[in-house]
């Protein structure tokens, strides 16, 4: 099960059926390009993240999404006429994708990110529709019905929600954008639906902003206990770093962890280099949040490296670093380019909210295998080796070692995060 806030639900194992997707073609020759385009756009939209479930055929739905108020099951969007969307016209498909309304008039829950998909162009809707009708194998199975608790089980309530919170405006180009940035914006704001995780949400779980005209768009937030970084400007990464990360889950200093691993694996690693460059250019063009005024004084790279090398009179955090982390991240905190992430200067280390860092320390991380970088690199979790007190000491050390300037972590915070892990 996945929480609603985790919209890119984990696919536990690769879907064997997906291997067949590329070879399925019931389209006429003339439509084949369109189907291929639709397939590409479905990757950009990451439809399979929710509409495919482990062990089930592609796009047949059935993924359980824990909304916090009950379970939402994703629907069958194969072209099966009885169990899927085989009877949908293109207009009905467009209404579902862009406005969250099913062919029978029922409202979809915004687990389906229709507020983002509202920005998808008519051309792309047409290609997607063609792909789902002709490029996907029909599957004759109906997933379980969603079971939300009262009053969320009253779908007409979604109409109200949409009135207040849904922004179903189409994509709008800003003045001064280059063609590349415009393309990047279209992908990020629309099919990419990056805002679903990277934009903070209000009390009604609505995204607080929906496009680059609003300063909170992509300014970061929290997801399932993870701190989600801001994507605005991304001052610590070059455009190439962003492209590499989206394409392979790793760049010269960072490595993907958490939900984003699946996004890379199933969605962004399948996009063209050009499209990824466009997305990077767009993100770099957004005004960054002002840098936090640091009250923490960094220890300094030379001082930390020297102390760890000498290995004398170590604090608990320093000792724990040598006993657990230095094997890959080394005493200079720099890791190895493209393979072991750097800790010195890392955004996951320096985030105000230490939850992502704690998550990685306790549960580890794993790069996806991608076309351009096929190696699966696994960082083990250290939960079995560290008490809460040790976890806090280690994280605190890392957050203030070398040039890092983040606050300490308490034992209570570490314990809380560990407890959250055990639940899943």
């Amino acid at each position, binding site marked *: 099960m996945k929480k609603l806030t985790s919209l890119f639900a984990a696919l536990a194992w690769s879907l064997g059926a997906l291997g067949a997707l590329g070879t399925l073609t019931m389209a006429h020759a003339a439509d084949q390009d369109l189907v291929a385009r639709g397939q590409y756009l479905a990757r950009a939209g990451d439809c399979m993240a929710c509409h495919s479930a482990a062990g089930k055929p592609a796009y047949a739905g059935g993924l359980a999404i824990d909304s916090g108020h009950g379970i939402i099951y994703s629907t069958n969007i194969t072209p099966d006429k009885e169990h899927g969307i085989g009877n949908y016209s293109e207009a009905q498909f467009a209404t579902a994708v862009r406005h969250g309304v099913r062919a029978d008039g029922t409202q979809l829950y915004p687990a389906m990110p229709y507020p983002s998909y509202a920005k998808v162009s008519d051309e792309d809707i047409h290609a997607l529709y063609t792909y789902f009708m002709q490029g996907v194998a029909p599957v004759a199975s109906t997933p379980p019905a969603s079971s939300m608790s009262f009053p969320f089980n009253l779908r007409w309530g979604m109409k109200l929600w949409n009135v207040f919170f849904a922004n179903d405006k189409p994509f709008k180009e800003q003045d001064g954008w280059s063609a590349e940035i415009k393309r990047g914006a279209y992908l990020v704001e629309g099919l990419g639906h990056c805002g679903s995780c990277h934009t903070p949400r209000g009390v009604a779980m609505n995204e607080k902003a929906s496009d680059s005209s609003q300063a909170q768009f992509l300014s970061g937030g929290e997801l399932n206990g993870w701190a989600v970084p801001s994507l605005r400007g991304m001052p610590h990464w070059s455009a190439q770093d962003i492209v590499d990360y989206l394409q392979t889950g790793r760049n010269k200093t960072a490595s993907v962890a958490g939900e984003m691993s699946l996004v890379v694996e199933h969605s962004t690693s399948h996009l063209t280099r050009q499209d990824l460059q466009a997305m990077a250019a767009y993100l770099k063009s957004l005004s960054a949040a002002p840098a936090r005024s640091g009250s923490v004084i960094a220890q300094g790279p030379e001082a930390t490296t020297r102390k*760890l*090398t*000498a*290995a*004398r009179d*170590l604090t608990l955090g320093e*000792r724990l670093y*040598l*006993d*657990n982390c*230095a*094997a*890959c991240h*080394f*005493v200079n905190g720099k890791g190895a380019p493209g393979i072991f992430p750097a800790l010195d200067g890392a955004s996951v280390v320096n985030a105000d909210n230490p939850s992502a860092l704690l998550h990685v320390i306790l549960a580890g991380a794993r790069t996806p295998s991608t076309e351009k970088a096929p190696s699966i690199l696994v960082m083990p979790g*250290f*939960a*079995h*080796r*560290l*008490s*809460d007190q*040790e*976890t806090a000491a280690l994280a605190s050390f890392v957050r203030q070692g070398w040039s890092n300037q983040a606050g300490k972590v308490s034992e209570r915070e570490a314990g809380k995060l*560990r407890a959250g892990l055990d639940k899943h």
Partner: protein
Amino acid sequence: MTSKFSPSRRAVLAATAAAVPLVSLPLLKQAKADGLEGIELRHYKPVFFNDAQWLFILAACDRLIPAEGRGPGALETNVPVFIDQQLHAGLGNDIYQQGPHQPDAPATLGFQIPYAPQDVYRIGIALTQQLSQQQHGKPFEQLEAKDKDALLTALQKNGVDFAALGETAMKPSQFFGQLLGDTKNGYLADPMYGGNKDMKAWVAIGFPGARAAYTEWVDQHNVKYPLGPVSLSGKRA
């Protein structure tokens, strides 16, 4: 004779029925479950050895790596726990056991006796106890230290004869070799296997344990490494 370790050692060596049956260790739900690492030797009830064999093992290990002198001894480091656990957990189940066996093959052709380690111990302990009775009228564990050492040496060098006691397949040196090898393994292995308690052997010799990260040390030639060991479970010394 007193030694700095004598209170617990004496208690261990004298303990018989006092041993608390060790049904299962309470696995506390915390980061580092102790497994075999938290065992107190005097409270440990063996799972492979019977009580009589256990007394022999305690006494033999206590001479093979004694308490006297610098460094921890086998009892202080729970080596007998290691041996008992290893035999219980299938030590030797990788040996090719199909016959026919040729026990008198030259030593350079390797292990050829029809025994698993469990048999080696069972038979070896029984025969050694017989020899002890023959020579001294007492079981091994009740001998003076120098007599224990002499009997162990005789086993090691085949100065005594198992064949005379009816054992034609195994030589005393083979039993001794198994016992000594397992004793040293238990002394120096990671504590998760039940021996090397609290990494005391590693601390004594200066081995850093499972840290396995020395990029910044490989260039520091002839500089004494200052840091104590870490175990696989993450314990520090």
